[in-house]
Each structure stands twice: as C-alpha cells, then as structure tokens.
C-alpha cells in the first residue's frame, strides 16, 4: 500500500494505519515535512517513509517498524511504547521524549532535549545530541556515538547513558560511572541492533548519583 502525501492527507494515512487490517508493508511518499505522520500505530506493520517529516512523526508508536528516509521534526517518536523507529537523517528537539519502550535509531544528530523524561525506550544516536538530553530520564538507555551537549542527564533517575565522544557538561546529579560487564553486553546488543560498528569499550557510562532522590532539609536548596 502506498500513500502519496502530495495528493493524500495525513489523516487518510493515519486512519488507514489505525484501521482493521492494514497491509504488512506501507510506503509513504512526498511527506514534505508534514506533521503527525504515522502516529498512534498499534499493529506490527513496516512503514517506509521516503522523505522528511515534521512534528511528532511516529508518536505513540506500538509494534510498528517505521523507517524515515530523511530528517524528522520536533517530538519524533514521542511517547513510543514498542516497535522501532529509524531516522536516516537528523532529528530535531525532544526526540524520543517520554517514551516507554521500543528502539529509536537516529543516524545523524539529535537536537536538544533528546530522550527528555524517557521512561524505558532505547535511543541510539549515530551523531551528537544537543543540550539537556536525557533530562529527568527515568528508564531505558540513551546511546550517543558522537558528542553530548551541556547538562547531559540532568536530574537523572534510572535511565543509563552511554557516550562515545565528549560531554560538554553533566547535569545535576549525573555522574560518570564504571562500565560493568552487563553494560558492555547491553551496549553491544544495542549498537548491533542499530547497525553501528562501534566497540562498547569506546563508550563511557553516565548514570544517576541518586543524591536528588530524597529531600534533604539540611541542604542549601540551591540546585
């Protein structure tokens, strides 16, 4: 099944994907930066998007495998629960925000706030991530093959970050931690699934120092 967004609406595409029995394979042509492409899919279909998408592409995805041959706008795969989203270009701000599960792969760079408040998703970024990435990240993994911007992992909960390049600065309560065998195994598997040839030994782990977990009445309250 093919949808050409030059002549068909995003609403038609999404209604089809939400319908009774969509084809196992759906192609989308001429997305031309449209918003909300392939959001809320809840079936194991392969969706191939040939071009750039705008805001909120693949949001709330469950089960679908969505391949974007272009760049993605803000809020890519926001709230994803399962399935796989792969962007061949770059992603704008807040990629994978608040997502509960699944795998998000971005071949290029991700902008600011990548993985903000992530709750279980695995995100693998082939390039670099912008400032405030993994802010208040609760669960899941953020893998950065390039560099990270300022305030990485600020107010982290139990999500784990692996960075290969430089980190401009760590956020409050984020700390570099020793890589365990489990980390190497998990990271190797994620890199392999994402299709990147890096060695896990080239990465450093950033996790929560857990000092913000409990209210400290004696502290200066200056965070």
């Amino acid at each position, binding site marked *: 099944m093919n949808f050409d967004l030059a002549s068909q609406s995003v609403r038609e595409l999404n209604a089809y994907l939400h319908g009774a029995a969509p084809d196992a394979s759906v192609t989308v042509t001429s997305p031309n930066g449209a918003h909300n492409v392939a959001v809320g899919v809840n079936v194991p279909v392969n969706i191939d998007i040939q071009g*750039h998408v705008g805001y909120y592409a693949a949001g709330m995805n469950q089960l679908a495998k969505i391949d974007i041959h272009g760049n993605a706008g803000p809020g890519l795969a926001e709230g994803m629960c399962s399935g796989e989203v792969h962007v061949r270009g770059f992603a704008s701000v807040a990629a994978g925000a608040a997502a509960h599960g699944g795998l998000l792969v971005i071949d290029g760079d991700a902008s600011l706030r990548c993985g903000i408040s992530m709750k279980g998703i695995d995100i693998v970024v082939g390039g670099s991530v912008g400032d405030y990435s993994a802010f208040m990240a609760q669960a899941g993994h953020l893998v950065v093959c390039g560099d990270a911007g300022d305030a990485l992992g600020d107010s982290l909960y139990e999500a784990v970050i692996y960075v290969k390049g430089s980190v401009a600065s760590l956020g409050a309560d984020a700390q570099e931690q020793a890589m365990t065998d489990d980390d190497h195994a998990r990271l190797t598997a994620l890199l392999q699934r994402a299709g990147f040839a890096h060695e896990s030994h080239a990465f450093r782990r950033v996790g929560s120092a857990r000092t913000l977990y409990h209210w400290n009445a004696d502290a200066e309250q200056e965070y």
Partner: protein
Amino acid sequence: MCGIVGLLLKRPALRPALGELMLPMFIGMTERGPDSGGLAVYGDRAASGERRFSLYAGESAVDWDAVAADVRTRFGQSTIEINGNHAIVEVNAAPEAMAQWIAEAHPDIALLSAGRTMDLYKDIGAPGEIAERYGFGRLRGTHVVGHTRMATESAVTPAHAHPFTFGDDFCLVHNGSLSNPNNVRRELEHQGVSFVTDNDTEAACRYLGHRLNEGDDLETAVTRGFSVLDGFYTLLIGTRDTLAIVRDPFACKPAIVAETDDYVAISSEYRSLAALPGVESARLFEPRPRQLYQWRVQ
C-alpha cells in the same frame, strides 16, 4: 506560534524570481501564523543620495497623488509607486525628517520603513491574502525576510505585524515571546529610542538596531542580546547585505536552513521549503542555539 521565512539568492540571475521563489515558503507558514503577515524585500534600488520609504494607509482613504505632491513640496524631486493602501516613495530625505513630517502632515499614514535598498509590507489577514494584495509573487531582489503571525502577547494590528525596522535597511522578525520587553523598552527610551507599539518583538528590534547604531557589529549586538533579551526567540534579521538567524540558548522555537549554490532558504519548518527547486539536494541543518548565522549578498 509564528512562522519565519528568509531567502537570499546567491545567483544574480535568480533575483527577478525572488518573490516567486519565496511565495510558497510564505504561504506554507500560514498554519503557524494565520492572523497577520509581512516581509522586507531588499534590492538594488534607490539612486545615490535617495532613500525609499514604505508608507501604509490601512483603512484610511488616502489620496496618494496629493501625498506625492506634498512630498515634492517638502523634500523636492521624488517618485512614488502606489499599490492600493501602500506606497513607496523614493526621495532624498533623512529618515527622522520623513518620520516627523509624516506624523505631522499625514497622521493617517504609517511610515513602515526607510532605507536605500529595503521595502516593507505588513498587514493583517491570512498570508495568502496579503501576498495577493501586495503582489509578493512579483517581487525582485537579493533577499527577503518574511513573517506570518499568530499573536500571543499583543494586539492584532498592522503595526504589531512583523517585520519591525530600525534606521536604514535593518529589519527583524521573531518567532517566540520575550518576558522582559517592557524593561528593554524603558531602558532604550532613556537612551532616546522611540517606540511605535507595545510589541515584544519591537523591543528586540530596537535593542539590536540601537546597538548597531552605537557601533556594534551584528555578532557583538546579538551576543549582548543574550543577556538582555529574556524569553524564547528565533530571530531572523535582514540588513542591506545580510540575512542572519539566531536562536535562544534553549532553541525553544524551530528553524531549518536549506543551502544550495543558488540560495540560502530559512524557515520555521521544512514543509515551507519543500517547493524550492533543488531543495532535495540542498544542505539541510537546524541552526544551533546561541549561535549567529549570517549570509552575505555576493
């Protein structure tokens, strides 16, 4: 929300098609800014010593021929191009003298801009209607700075629409909102800068324009601005020979650039760039926060 669009043509042969190339970008940002729109267009126009003044009459029924005669009496030899409630006067006059004279002699006319190469249009209505009203598709020139507005902080009037201008050939459009425009305005007023509206973008425009007048280059003015202008902003700036963009330190408002050998095109979103010829092989990138990007007319 608002939409910003900018286009600078690198290849001189394309300059007659500036309006035609920009039009789908401008109309493509209608959803981000359905209530007002405007643009500043730069070209090689005014004869040496002369300036171009963009005048706007709004709802007032203005006899432009009478205005043209008055301009001749006051300032001497001049030409006028009339386009409905909008006119462009070319005359040898200082911007301050023209502003003062218009306010006194024709208070129903707004002076939108002054400069040697810049013309300015702004009005309320859907971007497509405004483009049709003023023939944006027929504009020629080197670069253009456009805006579609969805007002969130001050009234919907032609004067509150963007672009805002300062002095000669400087204009600015803004996606976002400032939290301290009143402070910025108050401090500038103490330094003799006057304002037309209570719009937050006007404060940013006059702040940066004032800094340039004080001798800063754009990079220095914008860097100072990071500690003066508080809020969310993607600013698109035009000068006689430059198109520039800067985003606030949090990159709260979107922007994307498409660059080819023929042009630099900037928009809030890729969807308004999608109709540009050759965009599929353009270098696409999002400007980083807190970094000024500038392109010069060659």
